[in-house]
């Protein structure tokens, strides 16, 4: 089976496709064949400085051409990269030591890197032969949040990258007319996939800084946007507000934001709300949700050829989803696992995530339908077991309540293991109790008997970061909210009753 990574390090792509890099202060464009040549010259320089196969270099920089050049140069040499997201990591000697880095390269070196890539020499003597990676070799260290706050480090295998890229190409058929748009940090390995894809399959790719994302979409008119739910939720709000203010159709405002050439929008990394997915589909921009963890890479994906609303798509070739018949817990086994343990983690974290055979315990619950579509119901932690033995996953219920314009957030509890109580944070102050009551009735009408919300407690003041009821990522703090509203939750006289 062909290795995409081995192919792109071994030979230059045919000319004709480009990498564009967009920042707020300007953009630049380079043919992919020239990008390959420049990465080779940078690799020769790094090699001349003693950087060798198996070494590890850190890159702590905003999205830029230099980031891409360094990544490709490292691949060319067999050097492992560690991508650090600016703002989450600080450049320091301690970082070098902690992750065994030979060099740590930051934005400050951008000019020098560019100079070396443009003017350096790549002679046979200056570069060793291209590496021939085995599937279990690793090319990069990726980071994922850990239980202690310090990110866990996971080395990603070539086999997992290859199998994901092959599967994505089979599903989406990226081709010469495509321009894939990347604005999330290149420190996330999956964002670099689209550069590897461009080099192997022959299409354009545009990389922007986070701040220039919307400017870049207007300038370059991509065909595919690689986003996450938070990005699309923001875009939805913007489109709705602009359409309301201008009396123009949603479709027109959506095209104004994303451009006229969108073939599809990609979303993953976190659960997407049904309302958001439906919004974009209705606005003429097909959006495909998938499922995967850092530890599993892409497990399943909806795509134009196989798409089912509410699901996260069919399971990719080479991935095997195992559903526990008692708990509905989702585990994933891979023909080419990302890895079988963390490279950096607290004692016990690897064992909790990885079974002895490398199977990943995702912590999610779900099911697969008769046609092979995977549905994720929520986190195992979000599952409430009622005293009648019925399991209720609260996330979809909370999402249904949040569909009301009167409700900003909703957290569902089950105080007596019999009846569900929702604590909602209102969108407005004073809260619209009548609208909340109407929406409660509408939501309950769509739910099974055991899933129905018995009563709603309206939080006053609404959830906030300052009130310690929202995290810095604006997610409700479930246990804190329970503590604050315990009396109202348990008091049968208070609240809005169904």
């Amino acid at each position, binding site marked *: 089976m062909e290795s995409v990574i081995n192919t792109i390090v071994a030979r230059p792509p045919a000319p004709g496709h480009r990498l564009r890099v967009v920042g707020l202060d300007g953009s630049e464009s380079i043919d992919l064949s020239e990008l390959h040549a420049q990465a080779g010259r940078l690799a020769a320089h790094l090699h001349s400085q003693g950087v060798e196969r198996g070494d590890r270099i850190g890159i702590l920089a905003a999205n830029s051409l230099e980031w891409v050049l360094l990544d490709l140069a490292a691949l060319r040499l067999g050097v492992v990269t560690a991508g650090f997201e600016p703002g989450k990591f600080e450049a320091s000697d301690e970082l070098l030591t902690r992750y065994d880095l030979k060099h740590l390269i930051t934005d400050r070196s951008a000019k020098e890197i560019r100079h070396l890539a443009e003017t350096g020499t790549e002679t046979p003597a200056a570069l060793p032969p291209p590496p021939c990676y085995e599937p279990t070799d690793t090319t990069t260290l990726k980071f994922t949040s850990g239980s202690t706050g310090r990110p866990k480090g996971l080395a990603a295998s070539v086999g997992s990258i290859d199998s994901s890229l092959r599967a994505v190409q089979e599903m989406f058929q990226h081709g010469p007319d495509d321009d894939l748009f990347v604005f999330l940090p290149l420190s996330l390995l999956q964002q670099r996939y689209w550069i590897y894809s461009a080099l192997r399959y022959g299409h354009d790719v545009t990389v922007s800084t986070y701040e*220039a994302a919307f400017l870049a979409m207007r300038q370059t008119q991509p065909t595919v946007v690689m986003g996450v739910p938070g990005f699309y939720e923001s875009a939805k709000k913007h489109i709705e507000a602009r359409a309301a203010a201008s009396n123009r159709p949603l479709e027109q405002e959506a095209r104004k934001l994303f451009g006229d050439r969108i073939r599809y929008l990609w979303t993953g990394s976190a659960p997407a709300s049904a309302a958001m997915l439906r919004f974009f589909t209705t606005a003429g921009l097909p959006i495909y949700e998938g499922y995967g963890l850092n530890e599993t890479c892409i497990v399943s994906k909806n795509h134009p050829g196989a798409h089912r609303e509410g699901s996260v798509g069919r399971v990719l070739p080479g991935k095997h989803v195992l559903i526990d018949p008692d708990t509905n817990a989702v585990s994933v086994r891979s023909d080419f696992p990302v890895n079988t343990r963390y490279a950096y983690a607290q004692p016990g974290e690897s064992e909790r995530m990885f079974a002895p055979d490398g199977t990943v315990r995702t912590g999610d619950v779900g099911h697969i339908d008769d046609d092979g579509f995977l549905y994720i119901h929520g986190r195992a932690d979000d599952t409430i077991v009622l005293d009648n033995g019925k399991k209720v996953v609260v996330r979809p219920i909370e999402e249904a309540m949040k569909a009301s314009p009167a409700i*900003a957030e909703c957290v569902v509890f089950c105080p007596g293991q019999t009846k569900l109580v929702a604590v909602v944070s209102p969108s407005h102050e004073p809260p619209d109790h009548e609208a909340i009551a109407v929406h409660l009735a509408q939501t309950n009408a769509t739910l099974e008997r055991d899933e129905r919300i018995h009563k709603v407690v309206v939080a006053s003041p609404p959830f906030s970061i300052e009130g310690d009821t929202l995290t810095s990522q604006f997610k409700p703090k479930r246990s804190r909210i329970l503590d604050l509203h315990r009396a109202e939750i348990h008091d049968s006289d208070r609240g809005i009753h169904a």
Partner: protein
Amino acid sequence: MPDHAEVEHLKIEEAARRNLAPLLDPQITPEALDLDRDLAGDYGLTSLNKVLFLTAVCEDTGVALSRFTERDVARMRTLRDVTALLSPDAETAETAETAETADAAESEPAR
């Protein structure tokens, strides 16, 4: 009677208020927005919403977003910052850097 610069400033502030309000949860009217409250900490504006908000304000006021750098965006922490930086006479990071570079050109060591 307000002068031209003041009129422009007020237009930018009005556009900023109008574009920020719909992005916030809980909702708040444009008039009730406090010019000095922190967009992220007080109003819960996510970084992506901030970028979208700035894109919309620039579009409505005819200011090129490309006039700013990523550093300028980071500096816009309140509505007052946004209004000030979008004003025609604002000093962006680029102009500030040019001035600083000119000042420091002779003393900066080569890397």
